[in-house]
Structure formats: structure tokens, C-alpha cells
């Protein structure tokens, strides 16, 4: 195997590494670099201004709001999605008729999985269009039409949904949960199916009820899977860009602004675009934040791996 090994290695790695470095690594490094400059749209030159961008961010009302909203999604999205996904996975796996202990799928388990999983592979753009049409603020939206149809909402005063500053975050959260739950249900379901039946049998022999089986046996054994899901959902919660951008554009009055949309608008859109240095500082803040949170999550969730 040694003959011509190094030319081969270099030949095979050169292109992938080149593309990766140019279009992925270098932009990330440059983000950090530019965050210390006053680079704007009108100038090709820029000066180094130290930490000034970061100080400006600390005092920026809108950025603080965006930061808070990102934190909201970072906490709530994993919590609700994982709870729902675990519940459905458990229902799928042990809700089956019959009296065997442990894993036994309900009838049609694979059909449920196919359906539940589907929203996850849809483009966020499509998800946003569907839910945008449902939550229209006038009586032509599906939600309002149905609520008016059953008389819960007055014809002349349709619910505002995405234009309601108090509701908008929760609707966005709901749509995200709607999209992600199926994926994690399939994930947990696969992990549950991998738990050996003897463990459940032993638990039943010891007199464990279904609820105890779930909390004392299934849950601890799924710990690794859940912690991976938690980190992954945390990252998704900090992102939320496409959903927010397409459904509420961060409005009304920044009520649903998140850090990702803030970065995008500061650089490319909104009023006063082109503050690239400042936008990069936001990116770095978010990156550091993500890193710290990911480390904390892994620390908290880490425990000895259980082999079976």
C-alpha cells in the first residue's frame, strides 16, 4: 500500500480541503477579524476600533431584545420538542396491544413514523408559506376563518397572530416544534428499539409499571441520545433565521427579532444596511455564546456511558 502513497493523499485531499478552506474556514476566521473594525458599506478601507463594536452592542436595545429572544428559543425549543418526541416515541414503542414487556410497536408504527418525519425534510420556506397562510391577520387566514366559523372570534376583530407582539414568539416556537418533533421521535424510537428486551423483562419482574419503566429504565438508557438531541436543538433554536425571516421578519416592532435576523439585517437589509464590522461583532458574540452553552450542556448532561 505504500507505493505512491503521498502523491495520492495530496492529490485526493487538495481540492476538498481547498474548497473547504476558501468558502468555510476563511469566512469564519474573517468574521472575527472584521469584528474589530469599523468596516461599512461606503468604504473599502476600515480602521481598527478595538472593542468598540462590542460595547455598542451591549447598549443596543434591539440587539438585547434579539439576544433575549434567541435565548428564549434556545431554552424552549429543545425542552418542548424533546418532551413531545419522547412521548410519541414511547407511545409508538410500548403502546402496542398485547402483554409483552418492553418494546412492542403499535399497529401502523412505521406509517406514523413516515408521516411524522415529513415536515422535517420540507424546506423552511414551504413551512413558512403554509403557516403564514394559516395565521393571516385578516379573516382570509385559515385559523381566523375556523375560529370565526365556530364563533370563538368576532368577525370584525380577527386575531392578529404574527402581528401580535405577545403571540408571535409562541407561534414561531409552535411552528418550529411542529417541524422538528417527528425527526427526534424517529431518533428516540430507534434508540428505544435498541434497548434489549431483557432489561424491560427484569423491570416487569420487579413489578415496575409502565410509567416507572419509562422514567426509571427507558429515560436513563436514552441519556446519550437525548443529550445529543439537546445540543442539536439548542443550535437550531439559536438559528431560527429562515423561519423568522419568512414568517414575521422579526416584527412587530422587533418582538420576534433573533440574533440571526439581526446580523442579516445589519449587513444586508433593513434600514441602515452595510454595517459589516458591527454585524461581524454580533456573529462573534453569538459564536462565543453558542460555544459556551454547548460546553455547559455537554458538562451537565455527561455521565458514564451505559453499554449493553
Amino acid at each position, binding site marked *: 500500500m505504500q507505493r505512491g*502513497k503521498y502523491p495520492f*493523499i495530496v*492529490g*485526493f485531499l487538495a481540492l*476538498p480541503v481547498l*474548497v*473547504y478552506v476558501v*468558502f468555510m474556514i476563511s*469566512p*469564519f476566521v*474573517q468574521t472575527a477579524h472584521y469584528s474589530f473594525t469599523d468596516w461599512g458599506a461606503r468604504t473599502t478601507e476600515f480602521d481598527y476600533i478595538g472593542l468598540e463594536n462590542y460595547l455598542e452592542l451591549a447598549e443596543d436595545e434591539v440587539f438585547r431584545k434579539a439576544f433575549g429572544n434567541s435565548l428564549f428559543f434556545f431554552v424552549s425549543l429543545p425542552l418542548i420538542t424533546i418532551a413531545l418526541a419522547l*412521548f*410519541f416515541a414511547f407511545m*409508538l414503542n410500548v*403502546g*402496542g396491544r398485547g*402483554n*409483552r*414487556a418492553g418494546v412492542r410497536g*403499535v399497529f401502523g408504527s412505521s406509517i406514523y*413514523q413516515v408521516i*411524522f418525519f*415529513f415536515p*422535517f*425534510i*420540507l*424546506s*423552511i*420556506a*414551504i413551512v413558512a*408559506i*403554509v403557516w*403564514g397562510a*394559516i395565521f393571516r391577520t385578516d379573516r382570509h*387566514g385559515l385559523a381566523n376563518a*375556523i375560529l370565526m366559523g365556530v364563533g370563538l372570534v368576532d368577525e370584525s376583530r380577527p386575531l392578529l397572530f404574527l402581528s401580535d407582539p405577545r403571540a408571535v414568539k409562541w407561534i414561531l416556537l409552535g411552528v418550529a416544534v411542529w417541524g422538528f418533533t417527528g425527526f427526534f421521535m424517529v431518533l428516540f424510537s430507534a*434508540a428505544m428499539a435498541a434497548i434489549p428486551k431483557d432489561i424491560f423483562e427484569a423491570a416487569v*419482574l420487579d413489578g415496575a*409499571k*409502565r*410509567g416507572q419503566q*419509562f422514567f426509571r429504565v427507558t429515560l436513563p438508557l436514552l441519556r446519550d*441520545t437525548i443529550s*445529543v*438531541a439537546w445540543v442539536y436543538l439548542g443550535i437550531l433554536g439559536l438559528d431560527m*433565521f*429562515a423561519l423568522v*425571516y*419568512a414568517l414575521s*421578519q422579526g416584527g412587530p416592532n422587533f418582538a420576534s427579532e433573533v440574533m*440571526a435576523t439581526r446580523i*442579516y439585517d445589519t*449587513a*444586508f437589509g433593513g434600514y441602515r444596511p452595510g454595517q*459589516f464590522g458591527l454585524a*461581524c461583532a454580533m*456573529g*462573534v458574540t*453569538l459564536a462565543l455564546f*453558542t460555544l459556551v452553552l454547548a460546553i455547559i450542556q455537554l458538562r451537565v448532561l455527561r455521565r458514564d456511558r451505559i453499554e449493553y
Partner: protein
Amino acid sequence: MATSITTPPGIPAVEPGRRPGPPGGRGRGAPPRERGLAGGALNVFSHTFLIAWGVLVTFPLVWSVLQSFRTDGEIVANPWGIPTSLRWENFSRAWSVSNIGDYFLSTVIVVAGGVFLTMLLGSMAAYVLARYDFWGNRVIYYSFIAGLTVPIFLALIPLFFVVRGFNALNTYHGLILVYVAFSLPFTVFFLHSFFRTLPTSVAEQAAVDGAGHVRTFFQVMLPMAKPGLLSVGIFNILGQWNQFLLPQTLMRQQSGFDADRSVLAQGLVALAIQQGYRNDLSALFAGMTIATLPILVVYLTFQRQVQAGLTGATLK
């Protein structure tokens, strides 16, 4: 929540005529029939919740597809009605007037180029990293892995200027190369573990038979890695087909003379946001249906690989 409907322990006796206890997998502590009834209650309970969620998942999608067959007037008058006749003209209007056809073509070009290059470069890198020892191997591997954890938009602004530096804004090859770069971490990660599991003996045999490294890779190892390539390939097709942020930033017309090369996701969102002024709802729904169909076909055809590929990768 399930505790309330399980059988209380201590109810006596084994049902006659049945094999007692394990190894049938049945608990010895609880009598089979009672547990069977309890199981039935739990069964109804779980089906109720599962069906409810199933409806919640499918209803909005089915509803929007149905709307694509109605006229704007009908949709506005009664959002929850069903189509009175199949209005295919919505689809042709969406295809030509709302440019969905152009967006579709752009998406196909970018995804075809992007996925092909991703698979080629990704499998090459993964193979070398998985099966050859050399200085720097770990560093390169881990820098690919690091790319898995960071959200794209952190790199967005410099990326815009890198692409502009190559004069590649609003071009197919520019977007394709960026897609490749952002798809490589997962592809390398997935295929790396796949190439590791392939037996060494086959590659050695090929070397004995006089095949060079390159031939061994393309004619022996790649065919063996087919299942892995399929999983990650489907993953990349779905991921690149649905990508929104990158085209939104990099595929914008640079001037009035520049062709509109928007991809589907981008074009649809633009259409949805404009919809307030133009009010062609039925074309929007039709466009959405057109954009969903390929995804649905890929998903239903390769459903098992999609689920296995996506979930397996997360678990590793």
C-alpha cells in the same frame, strides 16, 4: 401518564392454557389477561395521541395543496373550502408568470452540480482520512468535524465578500462551490466512519493485483460504499434543495441587467412576502406544491435511507 392505566400488581393466577412466564418475554409478576386489557387501554390511548399529531402534521400541508386548485376568489371568500374544480391554470400561471419554472431550473442546476461535487470530493477526502496514516490527518479531520457545529450565518458576511472577490455572486458555479464547502463536513464525517468499517483485505488484494491507489478507490472501494453514499447523497439532495440563507445572500441580482437566478426556496419566500401587494394566492400555493413534489417523491422512495441516514448520523 401511563401509570394510571396499568394493572395493579398482585392480581392472581396464570391464564389457563398459556405458557407461563419467560422465555415468551412475558412478565411473571402480572397475569397475562389483565395486562392484555391494560395494554388495550394504553393502545387506544397512544393511538389517540398519535393520530392527533398525525392530523396536525398532515392537515396544513393537505390544506395548502388543496388551495392550489382553487381560484383566488374562492380562497379569499372561504379559506377552508375544498376545490370545486381542478384549476390547473394556477400551476401554469405559477410556472410562467411567477417564475417558478425558472426557479425550478436554477435549483436543479445548483443541486445537481452541488451534490455531484460534494459526493466526489467528500468521498475522496473521507477515504484518504479514514484509511491512510499521515502527518496532519487528525487536524484535517477535526477541522471538517468542527464545521458540523457552527451555524452558517456566522460566516455569512465575509463569505459574501469572498464570493464577490471571485466575481461569482449570482452565478451557478459560485453557489455550487459554497454548497460543496458547507456540505463537506457532514459528508466527510459520515463517509469516514463508513470507509472505516470496510474490510482492509479487499483493498490489499486489489493492491496485490496491481491496482493503484486511485483505481482501488474508484473501482473497489466506492462500489463497496454504495449504501453509505446513497444515504449521504439523499441527505445532501434534501439539504441543498431546501437551502435558503445561502442563496438569499449569494444569488441576488447584482444589477438590473443581471438574470434572476433565484432558487425555489428563495423565490417562494419572495413571492410570499410580495403576496401582500400582488395577491395571487393560488399561484403561491401552486408554486409551493410544485416545490414540494420532488421532495415528496425522493422521501417516499428512499424513506428508509433518509431516516436511517439522518438519525444514524446524529447518534454517532
